[in-house]
């Protein structure tokens, strides 16, 4: 930290909050709120006279509220930068600090929060994690029994810079405890609170147990656990060392802690899994390893940064395996536990990776993006035709790349667009087009594959990242499937416009396959979700129209599921084979007027040459936009 502060090209802004982030990769504009410290940073030399003079004491959050601090304070002695601040919520305005500061005149009660705007090229988010409050788990009596503490509190008590100068005492009688227990998974791996594993508590409790044993070999330490997870390098050896040192490991999750009200000794009730017997053991002090949860204001940060959250509330990465340090928004990166529970080695590794990723951006003159971006045709947008934009495109975009300002037509921030095509397919006015996957291009593909004997054909819409790969794998693995399949590629199932399906049936297609990634694999965060919603709507509608079950099929097929792709296609072929040709023809004819009706608002779909010309104008438009940016 001191090194970072000394590095001339690192600008450290303590006590500052991010208010707003605008712009896009390479050109972010960040609004910062520099909070009033009531101390002038350029004058304070960190001598601490103000704190000594201050008569007010409040609990110090850095010491887990176990020790007091003054209203004029630094959170800990190693604070960087070493500048005191005054806690206005606690201050009584006695101005003793001003007197104590004397000649330096560093204290300024007139200071106010300042809003500062900064232009930055890339953002690394490292906001860390929060702690689960174990007092909601009444069975463990935290906050009722004085000797039940959290491991974080124990860390402060055990720390030589902490409130007891490293002398571990139990809160009830200030004696050194002899029998201690750690309880793992307090609030984690628990469907009532946080179903996920907190990642590092096993190692953390073993570390603390070893520390306690090293300081005083006579103490008895027991760790209650459900499973001990030691997956990284050297971790299992560390676990072995703990066992060799005589630390007890008891498998079994405690169901209850009771207290002797006179001595404040604790009784931990748990089953000894190996013996199959309920046990009740007495301890002087019990430490709870509480669950790791997202920061309390993670939701707020998520909306400020426009970065989505995973189901647990953590920031969502671009790809869990391949790009864990990238956010879905270009130019924003993650380091550490804000993206998910993580121990120190993983956080350091991710932080270094994020720095390397960010420096790629800072060292580039230009930044390449996907060529398949969306473009708005403002004349068609409902903002122009009807005076108010419908906003479906904004809802469909997983990247926040669509902007609607006032009553102006929707606008795509090209640098933010990743080219899934969700907005293109959702737009009811067909006012948005995706370059290289224009409606005209795809419609002419559909027309081409259905030019001859359409009732025999199966039109398969595949997403580029998964189903197309699945079909490829089916081919390279020599899985046999029907030769009547005609595959069409789009970038994401979100791009599979209802119009394409209608057009296929209008032309008399035998069957249509609507396929894409599994929801958790989607390349475009929530693209599949948009596609799946639409597919569900279509399935319902075709059911109502009386289409034979299986002529419209929705299947989520990953790039590794070549066999599934072949199987689905063969099943669809079987459905067609089972239908007498006259019945199929009758059904196609019956549905055609309905399809034509639905395609009506799409009256003059341009042919291939017109589509190419349109695409050219769009490309020009893009280039213009680029120049503006």
């Amino acid at each position, binding site marked *: 930290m001191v090194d970072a502060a000394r590095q001339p090209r690192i600008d450290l802004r303590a006590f500052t909050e991010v208010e707003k982030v605008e712009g896009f990769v390479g050109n972010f504009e960040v609004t910062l709120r520099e909070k009033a410290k009531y101390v002038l940073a350029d004058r304070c030399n960190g001598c601490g006279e103000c704190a000594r003079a201050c008569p007010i004491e409040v609990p110090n959050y850095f010491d887990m509220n176990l020790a007091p601090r003054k209203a004029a304070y630094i959170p800990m002695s190693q604070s960087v930068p070493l500048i005191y601040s005054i806690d206005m919520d606690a201050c009584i305005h006695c101005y003793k600090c001003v007197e104590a500061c004397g000649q330096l005149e560093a204290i300024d009660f007139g200071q106010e929060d300042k809003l500062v705007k900064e232009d930055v090229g890339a953002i690394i988010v490292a906001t860390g994690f929060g702690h689960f409050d174990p007092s909601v788990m009444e069975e463990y009596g935290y906050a009722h029994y004085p000797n039940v503490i959290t491991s974080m509190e124990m860390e402060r008590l055990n720390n030589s810079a902490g409130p007891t100068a490293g002398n571990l005492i139990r809160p009830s009688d200030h004696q050194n405890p002899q029998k201690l227990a750690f309880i793992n998974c307090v609030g984690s791996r628990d*469907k*009532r609170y946080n179903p996920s594993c907190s990642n590092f508590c096993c190692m953390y409790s073993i570390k603390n147990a070893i520390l306690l044993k090293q300081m005083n070999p006579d103490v008895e330490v027991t760790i209650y656990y*459900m499973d001990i997870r030691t997956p990284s390098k050297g971790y299992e050896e560390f676990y072995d060392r703990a066992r060799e040192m005589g630390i007890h490991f008891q498998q*079994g*999750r*405690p169901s209850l802690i009771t207290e002797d009200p006179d001595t404040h000794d604790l009784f931990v*009730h748990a089953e000894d*899994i190996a013996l*199959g017997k*309920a046990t009740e053991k007495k301890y002087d002090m019990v430490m709870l390893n509480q669950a790791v949860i997202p920061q309390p204001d993670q939701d707020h940060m998520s909306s400020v940064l426009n970065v989505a959250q995973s189901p647990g509330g953590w920031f969502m990465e671009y790809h869990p395996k391949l790009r864990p340090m990238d956010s879905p928004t270009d130019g924003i990166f993650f380091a550490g536990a804000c993206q998910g529970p993580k121990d120190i080695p993983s956080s350091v590794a991710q932080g270094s990776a994020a720095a390397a990723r960010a420096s790629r951006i800072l060292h580039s003159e230009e930044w390449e993006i996907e060529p398949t971006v969306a473009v708005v045709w403002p004349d068609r947008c409902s903002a122009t035709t009807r005076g108010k934009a419908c906003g479906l495109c904004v809802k469909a975009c997983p990247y926040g790349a669509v902007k609607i300002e006032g009553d102006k037509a929707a606008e795509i921030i090209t640098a933010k667009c990743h080219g899934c095509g969700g907005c293109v397919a959702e737009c009811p006015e067909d006012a948005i087009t995706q370059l290289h996957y224009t409606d005209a291009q795809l419609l002419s593909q559909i027309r081409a594959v259905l030019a001859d004997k359409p009732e025999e054909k199966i039109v398969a819409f595949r997403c580029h990242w998964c189903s197309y790969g699945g079909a490829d794998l089916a081919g390279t693995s020599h899985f046999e499937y029907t030769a009547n399949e005609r595959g069409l590629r789009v970038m994401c199932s979100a791009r599979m416009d209802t119009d394409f399906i209608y057009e296929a049936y209008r032309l008399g297609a035998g069957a249509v396959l609507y396929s894409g990634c599994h929801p958790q694999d989607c390349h475009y965060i929530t693209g599949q979700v948009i596609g799946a919603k639409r597919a569900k709507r279509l399935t319902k509608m075709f059911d109502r129209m009386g289409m034979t079950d299986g002529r419209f099929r929705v299947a989520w097929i990953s790039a590794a599921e070549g066999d599934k792709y072949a199987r689905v296609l063969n099943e669809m072929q079987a459905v067609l084979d089972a239908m007498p040709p006259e019945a199929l023809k009758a059904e196609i004819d019956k549905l055609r007027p309905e399809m034509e009706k639905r395609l009506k608002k799409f009256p003059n779909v341009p042919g291939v040459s017109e589509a190419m010309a349109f695409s050219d104008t769009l490309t020009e438009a893009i280039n213009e936009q680029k120049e503006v940016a």
Partner: protein
Amino acid sequence: MSHTTTMTTFADDVKAIPGGENLELCYSCGTCVSKCMIQQKVDPEYNPRRLLRMVMEGMKQEAFSNPTTWLCSECDLCYQACPQQIHISSVINAVKAIAVDDGKETILHTAKVNQQTCVGCGLCAEACPYEAISLVQTKVPFRGLIQVAEVDPGRCMACGLCSAICRSTSIGVQIEYSDEAIIENLWNWMLPQGVEE
């Protein structure tokens, strides 16, 4: 038929019964056992965690002869504490239902009806918390075809509520908890104190 096939079938049977579907979520943390009053006060062999494991491993006969199958009183203390939120008493009930179907009998001394004195008033049927008692038209020797109470031993938990509510002392649980035995016990506890005072 291989052993493995039998194993899967038992777990599947239990999962097919409503309440049994969460069986495989259990990761054997032992919270239920540590919470259970029956394990601690009645029978140390009682162990829901092990019963769930037996079902998963297909140990059918062991599960049927295990006291856990028969002794659960559905107090649901374990359900409140279970980190996986498995409704354990429902799983145990599912195992019990299969055991009863299989012709197994409970290890409890369930309630017995004295058909000679039962008047068929139905108070016991209303009182039973396990819905184990019903009124049935029965041909009773010397009394002819009359309506008397009948106990379903697969459901009866031998709590004795029926015995307490019966006005004609026609229904009762096992001998050491009969009315006479309990009264005698009470006398035994109270008398010496009375003499001392």
